[in-house]
């Protein structure tokens, strides 16, 4: 009996997973498969860009600066042992562009904006604001979900670029201003090793995909929340956990595809 129960449980969770994916897909489809309405949609989008993008800027810029500085400090200590401390520039720039920029930004974004999105939507659902929209003959998918989704997809890549740029600047502060690496050498070696197509375009592709995944999970968790206090707090936690795991797994896949061969 233990075994049959186990199998039944496995089957149930598999069915739940598939229904969940289906519902998430339908939600996103319902939200974005429309002709955009410029006049009504643009103010909504701008407001969400403010909430999702502008309000995440401080944490992203501060983290970027410090991560760049720490990276440079640790890197310097290792590289100086080989007498190749001039390579600090490419080390910092490539680590940030290829991995840390997109990934750390996405993780911070999941914690800052993703959880806030889920909590906001969950609260709207439990106070019947979403039902109320439905009853006013306004589609909540278009009114509420769509602007938040687009704002997330636009904001995260921009934040990742800012994170990377300020991180490299942080590396410059530590390497050049503090440790005394020659500024010319730092930049010229950095510039000759960073490539537009391989590094910058891939950085943007990564952060764009992370943006879709994180925003989607956050919106789905909030929109399909069980509308009580316990459900809301659980949904918020799930957003952060699931989107972080999804970002890391996706990052491995993308890195293998982009830099693997």
């Amino acid at each position, binding site marked *: 009996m233990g075994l049959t129960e186990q199998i039944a449980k496995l089957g149930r969770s598999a069915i739940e997973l598939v229904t969940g994916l289906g519902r998430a897909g339908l939600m996103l489809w319902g939200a974005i498969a429309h002709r955009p309405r410029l006049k009504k949609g643009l*103010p909504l989008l*701008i*407001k969400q*860009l*403010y909430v999702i*993008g*502008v309000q995440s*800027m401080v944490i992203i810029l501060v983290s970027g600066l410090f991560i760049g500085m720490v990276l440079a400090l640790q890197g310097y200590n290792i590289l100086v042992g080989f007498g190749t401390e001039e390579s600090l520039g490419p080390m910092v*720039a490539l680590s940030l*562009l290829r991995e840390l920029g997109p990934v750390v930004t996405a993780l911070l974004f999941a914690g800052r904006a993703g959880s806030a999105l889920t909590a906001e939507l969950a609260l709207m659902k439990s106070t019947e604001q979403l039902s109320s929209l439905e009853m006013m003959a306004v589609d909540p998918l278009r009114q509420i979900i769509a602007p938040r989704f687009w704002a997330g997809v636009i*904001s995260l*890549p*921009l*934040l990742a*670029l*800012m994170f*990377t*740029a*300020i991180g*490299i600047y942080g590396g410059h502060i530590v390497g050049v201003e503090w440790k005394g690496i020659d500024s010319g050498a730092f*930049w010229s*070696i*950095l*510039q*000759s090793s*960073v*490539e*537009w197509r391989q*590094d*910058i375009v891939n*950085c943007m592709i990564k952060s764009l995909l992370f943006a879709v995944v994180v925003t989607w999970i956050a919106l789905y968790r909030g929109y399909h929340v069980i509308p009580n206090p316990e459900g809301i707090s659980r949904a918020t936690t799930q957003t952060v956990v699931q989107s972080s795991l999804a970002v890391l797994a996706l990052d491995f896949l993308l890195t293998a595809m982009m830099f693997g061969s």
Partner: protein
Amino acid sequence: MLTRKIEVLVGLFLLSGLAAFLILVFNVANVEVKTGDNSYTLHAKFDNIGGLKVRSPVKVGGVVVGRVSAIELDPERLVPVVSLSMDKQYKYFPETSSLSILTSGLLGEQFLGLSPGFMDDDIEMLVDGDSIDDTHSALVLEELIGQFLYSAGTKD
């Protein structure tokens, strides 16, 4: 519904994103905008290019005068063909100039060293599309050691 402050801040946010992008593209990846007028192309065949890469610099006495724009294999003679994108500012190199693949430092990156040849009345200047014939391939450490061992062996 939207306050002016929010609109301004969102505008600033988008601009900072754009600024970060431009910094990364032009300052970090150092992509040069090719306007077509600023460069001319030369070709050169080598036997072995070693670790030369696209975007490696071309230097004359340490001054960067151009960059490697493409590396291909000649389909008939099966040797590497390197295309150089040269700065129009430096356009007075005679046909007799030679190219060699050099290494900065013992383990550093490889670059092309251009040695301007002698000039004479009947020697023309290199122009867009010309080839440099006098080329010296990269030094491959393994071959060098092999030669050294061989010559050391024959002396005995």
